[in-house]
């Protein structure tokens, strides 16, 4: 029995190992191959968003493949699943850092995964362009390899507050958040700005990220009858809250951040409940531009899916990388650039016109031109109707 058990173990281990041998072919250094990695959750309950980032980046690479072929390089996507988990994220980071073919990373959806991975990228000199981290402290750590194309919480929150106060004439506001790094950061930034603008914050409440039961929260909002509700959370939760608010006949405005910018919000909240819902987003309105329409069509053709905000972030972040890569190859006399050279080229990105965003990095790695756009869901369509642009320069 013992012997057969050992034997079985041997077989299991060996077969697992054999299965995994394939990787040895992928990680050995190849001169003309350049891999761009993505890091986002591809499994677990954030998979939908993580997938969008990956597919956005994939599309960007497909688009630019030919350009790099002409320069003599094969560019490949190297997608990694960080599972939205800090430990897995760090392990992936070490994998990428120790793989010489990987020159840049598009990634991390969660700020909480980026935070522990940041120092490891820094040690490996591997440049990162984040499509979606909004937590303020990430660019305050002095990391030279870290960049992001989206607006920080302390730009997006105040932009929402300004719109609520000046355009919607909101006097009292109920603020809630999902107790995550993203949601709470955004809600706190909104609160600070709201108080400065003279709004009365009637309540500031957290609710667990996994919570599905929004009746108590909706009831207390309906009882307090504030002019507006601000909810810092992802679309799945804000959708549920908006639905419950509708059922409780709450009649004020509802505001949220870019986490709610998702087509599923329409179904989850119900179109009728969205009549007075506004969101801030850092992605420009692509439905009006030719480029944006072309992107949406291509995306649909390739993946048989509607693009979401995160796919557009992923696409633009990857374009920023590829643009810098092309430049650094040329600067390097047509040879494969080092990570350092690529990082320098990325950091120097200036006035880059993506499909959805304009990108100029400042010395911290923040996007200087990350304007905030206000959208309305009143018509029950997705993408939501564009209302106005609030310049990031107002809040610097």
């Amino acid at each position, binding site marked *: 029995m013992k012997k057969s058990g050992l034997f079985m173990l041997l077989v299991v281990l060996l077969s697992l190992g054999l299965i995994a041998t394939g990787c040895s072919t992928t990680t050995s250094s190849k001169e003309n191959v350049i891999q761009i990695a993505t890091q986002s959750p591809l499994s677990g309950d954030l998979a939908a968003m993580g997938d969008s980032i990956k597919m956005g980046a994939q599309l960007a690479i497909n688009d630019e493949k030919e350009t790099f072929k002409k320069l003599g390089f094969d560019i490949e996507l190297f997608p990694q699943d960080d599972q939205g988990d800090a430990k897995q994220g760090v392990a992936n980071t070490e994998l990428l850092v120790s793989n010489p073919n990987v020159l840049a990373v598009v990634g991390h959806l969660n700020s909480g995964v980026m935070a522990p991975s940041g120092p490891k990228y820094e040690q490996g000199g591997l440049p990162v362009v984040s499509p979606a981290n909004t937590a303020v402290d990430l660019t305050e750590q002095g990391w030279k390899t870290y960049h992001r194309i989206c607006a920080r919480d302390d730009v997006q929150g105040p932009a929402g507050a300004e719109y609520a106060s000046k355009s919607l004439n909101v006097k009292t506001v109920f603020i809630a958040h999902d107790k995550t790094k993203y949601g709470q950061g955004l809600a706190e930034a909104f609160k600070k700005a709201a108080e400065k603008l003279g709004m009365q914050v009637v309540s500031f409440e957290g609710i667990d990220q996994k919570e599905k039961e929004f009746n108590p929260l909706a*009831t207390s909002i309906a009882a307090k009858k504030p002019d507006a509700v601000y909810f810092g959370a992802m679309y799945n939760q804000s959708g549920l809250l908006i639905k419950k608010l509708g*059922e409780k006949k709450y009649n004020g405005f509802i505001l949220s951040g870019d986490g709610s910018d998702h087509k599923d919000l329409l179904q989850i909240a119900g179109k009728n409940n969205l009549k007075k819902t506004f969101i801030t987003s850092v992605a420009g309105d692509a439905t009006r531009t030719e480029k944006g329409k072309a992107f949406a069509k291509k995306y649909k053709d390739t993946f048989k899916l509607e693009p979401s905000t995160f796919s557009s972030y992923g696409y633009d972040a990857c374009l920023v990388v590829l643009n810098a890569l092309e430049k650094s190859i040329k600067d390097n006399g047509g040879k494969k650039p080092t990570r350092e050279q690529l990082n320098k080229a990325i950091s120097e990105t200036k006035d880059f016109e993506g499909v959805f965003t304009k990108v100029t990095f400042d010395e911290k790695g923040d996007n200087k031109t990350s304007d905030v756009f206000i959208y309305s869901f009143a018509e029950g369509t997705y993408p939501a109707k564009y209302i106005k642009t609030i310049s990031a320069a107002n809040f610097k």
Partner: protein
Amino acid sequence: MDLGSLASMLPQVFIDGLTLGFLYAVVALGYTMVYGILELINFAHGEIFMVGAFIGTEVLLLMQAMGIMSGLNPYLALFLALGVAMIFTGALGVSIERVAYRPLRFSPRLVVLISAIGVSFLLQDLVRFTEGMTRNAFYVTGPNLLDGSLHVMDGLILEEKSLVIILIALIMMVGLHLFVNKTKWGIAMRAVAQDQQTASLMAINVNKVIALTFFIGSSLGGAAGVLYAQYYGTIDPYIGFLLGLKAFTAAVLGGIGNMKGAMIGGIALGLLESLGAAYMGPLTNGNFGAEYKDVFAFSILIIVLLFRPEGIFGEAVNEKV
């Protein structure tokens, strides 16, 4: 916030808590039935609930796609979805028992727990996978069947679906009670719960009874899933885990293995949670708000178990030497 407006919230919070409590109670019944017979925490029960929610929603979506929804009475549609989901989840429960639990009936309990966790992971991922393949979506929203509501007074809105959920849950509970106490199969079930060996000597087919228990418990879980999907509108493959946990807590609170305990425990937990989530924040000046809801629920559990280690309605088990 003044006390007046806090008090005006009370009826609404109470009704919502009651609805949630009835959902918990129905799921808790499934846990408690299986535990009563096998002394096994069926960790996969939360996932069966989730599968039920998905099947019910898929049936409704299918009917909508085929265009027979519009002419159909919404109640009829709901019962159809309930029926299909219950049969399917019942069968699912029986097959899980057959494959993952029965071979382990005489193994240490921890091993069965591991197997149950395995089943749980498997179901989560299977559903995520099928939904991903067929709908390319993660969150699935079904058609809203019951959207009537009655504005009783300022601060109290009675929703049709709340009432329907409470009603259906009550019917199922009463039905189960009658089944267990009045029918031959129910008596066999109680006999097996008391002593498997003696029961088998009394010409009771223990395996069949256990399978039946799993069928009933799981179909109740599946039905709760359909009701949940109606109540909250949107479901995802991971709803089962937390809700299952809460329902299990409810079952333990009431005294696991005891059906009356599961019902009361579920309702109590739902009410306490809702009250806690609505009132903790204002009463502590915002320092301990709705985010402490689960702490509240689990603390109550621990306190109850401190004073009544066998749960509220559980019978104290005397140790046998």
